[in-house]
């Protein structure tokens, strides 16, 4: 589309990838784009570890008596799956990979505010991951990712401390990343880039960062207290030594519910970018979409009690948490309506990133609406602790966050690598993932209402048909995730050269060559228009 930049072959031009070579130039880099690639490699590795655990879980559940492993091993599998996917894939996914790469480019800066702290974030992640991998290799951990006390603090005979330490350390990585983004967005925007000219991805990352720096310290405190009780028998959570097990749940969910929004808000930001680009329209209700991100960030801290409707918190506390949980659904609904309205009278193309975005809207809508069941007190009593919960949060975190992550990777891949991937394969993979996902998780809604509890290594025979359906879907989903891995790696070497702006997209990141030079922009751009100014015909003055 954009022909104003003369495209020289990527090989002969100096950019961030070929500016220097050697392992040291990567491990000691402070370039946000290189750090983003370090993250991409690390979280992809962890994704496939978590995915391997999921594969074994679904294989095991083909038989009601358990087809594969002993119950104790099964418990370790779902714990590994949860810990790895949540703390080591979903939470860092969009912020640490796409956010790292894009925040400076989108705000017209040469790097993040604190490049060395940015590198430190990645090292903290690696140290945390090493602890967790060590725990897996030396016997595993069987507490569930929720570490409920007093099971985790007193009764579990597995690698609780190593795992908890890994999660504790990776939390600081998350805090530092959030801090870096907040400072960068406040202080380093290009001239003319006012708050309401920012891409909605930046708004979403900003809202996410606020949750990261306010919520994650509470997780650190909680894990610290858990360690104190397990190692030194200080009575905090175990009633046998004077503690209160429910206190742990309050502390844990005070972080872990907002953490759900750390996972989904950046995805919403990605979707806004994709929908605008592939319908060539400014996002409908731009300000409402931006405000709704901030509303979600605030409300997310006030709904943790909905995880505890059956623990014995008072009926009145239940009522308050229920009404607040309904309220947090509203800004999400507003976003979905605005994205749909953006398509109206647009110029819609069906490139692969757009298919992921549309898949996101569908799956996120279902995930969000099934959340209303769980906000509804009387229905939650029946559904909590069952497969309905599992289905619901996978619709949000896999149907939502992972779809958005993959959509974003496909959208910005040409910018990151300078290469295009085979679009046909990419669309095919998007379709396979959408179908496989629904086959895997839809039956679990039914299983949940029928009453099948989650985290069961063996289960009554009447649930087998739905479990087999779910496992069959998972095999399709698994293939769907492998296909992009193959063609994306292939494209790095063999893909056609992308050019600076293959989608004809708006945004500062598209006004610099692909891959961008180390300093991002030859000259810091001056912004004179709103985000998503697709309506004006291009006059060649921008990029």
């Amino acid at each position: 589309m954009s022909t104003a930049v003369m495209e020289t072959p990527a090989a002969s031009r100096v950019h961030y990838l070929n500016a220097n070579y050697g392992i040291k130039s990567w491990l000691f880099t402070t370039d946000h784009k290189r750090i983003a690639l370090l993250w991409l490699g690390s979280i992809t590795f962890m994704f496939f570890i978590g995915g391997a655990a999921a594969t074994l879980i679904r294989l095991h559940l083909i038989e009601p008596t358990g087809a594969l492993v002993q119950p104790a091993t099964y418990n370790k599998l779902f714990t590994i799956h949860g810990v790895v996917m949540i703390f080591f894939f979903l939470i860092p996914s969009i912020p640490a990979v796409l956010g790292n790469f894009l925040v400076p480019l989108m705000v017209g800066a040469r790097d993040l505010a604190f490049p060395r702290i940015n590198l430190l974030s990645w090292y903290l992640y690696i140290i945390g991951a090493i602890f967790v991998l060590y725990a897996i290799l030396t016997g595993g951990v069987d507490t569930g990712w929720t570490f409920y006390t007093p099971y985790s603090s007193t009764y579990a005979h597995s690698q609780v401390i190593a795992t908890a330490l890994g999660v504790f350390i990776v939390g600081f990585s998350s805090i530092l990343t959030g801090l870096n983004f907040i400072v960068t967005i406040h202080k380093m925007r290009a001239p003319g880039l006012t708050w309401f000219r920012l891409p909605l991805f930046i708004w979403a990352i900003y809202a996410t960062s606020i949750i990261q720096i306010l919520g994650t310290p509470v997780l650190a405190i909680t894990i610290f207290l858990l360690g104190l009780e397990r190692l030194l028998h200080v009575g905090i959570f175990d009633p046998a030594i004077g503690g209160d097990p429910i206190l742990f749940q309050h502390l844990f969910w005070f972080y872990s519910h907002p953490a759900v929004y750390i996972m989904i808000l950046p995805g919403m930001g990605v979707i806004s970018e994709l929908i605008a680009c592939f319908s060539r329209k400014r996002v409908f209700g731009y300000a409402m979409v931006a405000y709704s991100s901030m509303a979600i960030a605030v409300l997310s801290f006030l709904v943790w009690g909905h995880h505890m409707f059956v623990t014995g918190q008072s009926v009145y506390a239940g009522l308050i948490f229920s009404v607040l949980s309904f309220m947090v659904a509203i800004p999400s609904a507003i976003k979905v309506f605005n994205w749909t309205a953006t398509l109206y009278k647009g110029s819609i193309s069906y490139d692969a990133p757009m298919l992921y975005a549309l898949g996101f809207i569908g799956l996120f809508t279902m995930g969000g609406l099934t959340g209303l069941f769980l906000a509804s007190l009387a229905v939650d009593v029946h559904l909590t602790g069952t497969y309905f919960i599992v289905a619901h949060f996978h619709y949000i975190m896999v149907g939502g966050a992972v779809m958005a992550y993959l959509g974003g990777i496909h959208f910005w891949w040409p910018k990151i690598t300078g290469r295009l991937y085979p679009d046909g394969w990419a669309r095919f993979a998007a379709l396979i993932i959408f179908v496989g996902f629904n086959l895997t998780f839809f039956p679990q809604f039914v299983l949940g209402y029928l009453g099948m509890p989650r985290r069961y290594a063996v289960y009554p025979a009447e649930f087998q048909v739905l479990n087999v359906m779910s496992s069959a879907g998972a095999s399709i989903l698994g293939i769907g995730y492998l296909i992009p891995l193959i063609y994306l790696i292939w494209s790095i070497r063999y893909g056609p050269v992308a050019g600076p702006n293959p989608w004809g997209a708006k945004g500062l990141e598209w006004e610099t060559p692909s891959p961008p030079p180390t300093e991002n922009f030859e000259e810091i751009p001056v912004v004179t228009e709103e985000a998503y100014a697709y309506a004006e015909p291009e006059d060649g003055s921008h990029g």
Partner: protein
Amino acid sequence: MSGTFNFLLAAVADPWFGFPIKPEDASTTASSVDHLYYFLTALTLFFTFSIFTTIFYFMVKYRRRSPDERPKAIETSTALEVTWTVIPVMLCAFAFIWASSLYFRNSRPPNASMEVFVVGKQWMWHLQHPEGAREINELHVPVGVPVKLTMTSEDVIHDFSIPVFRIKHDVIPGRYSSIWFQATKTGTYHFYCAQYCGAEHSGMIGWVYVMTPTDYANWLSGGSRGESMAQAGERLFTQLGCITCHVADGTGRGPVLQGLYGHPVKLRSGETRVVDEAYVRQAIVNPNSMPLPDYPPIMPTFQGQVNEEQVLQLIAYVKSLGTVEKGTAK
């Protein structure tokens, strides 16, 4: 109106092409929970279908016809934004009120409930009836009678879940929680542990037997060993030596327990507490945490010497020493 509604629901719901999509409804509250569930399902289907259809329609109608297309910008409409904010708010408010009133109504057991005591431990359920019958991983109850379960755990957190009654509640060490139900159909139904509790979590399941009142009475007399919970408690009370201090005529070193249950008691801290199950349990396992003004704090803890089932028996004994009617205690 509600008859038609129920008929329509029955037509679409269970079974669905011979395939069950909901558990049997076997309690007085089950079908009311189902109705709310159907409403939420209808809401979900309506919005999902509307959004899918709209997206699909726009995708076809506004598909890109030439690479140079530059659609006109469309101004944001405040009226639209308000509309699609207010409608979900109203629907959520409706669902909230419906769900909460149902929950609130179900939160208190009727006064005439019969009681069963449940102790969860890794990895089995111990249940005892006041009349003395004890069972493991089985719960026998009569149909048509409200049943209150008073539950605690010997070790980690468990959760007692009976899907056909649409109830569950966490079973927490160190405290009593309770749920209640009134079964409407005789039959045999699953109950589960629904809170992950370790290696054999998925083995911690059992059966509820809902029986006719006659069958239940027969079962109860057959199952008991001639000793009620209160009698078992009395035996413990003597064995453990409680009786040497808690003397009925007031000459002992400890307070008189006769007629105490259900009464308010003033602690040395100035706090006033009503003697209930939690109070008696705390007095047994951790007496030093609640010294009384007129007695020296000399009672030893019985933590570790009695298990949770025995604590429940001691409570039953204290209760049997005379209570005041609920309502007058306040």
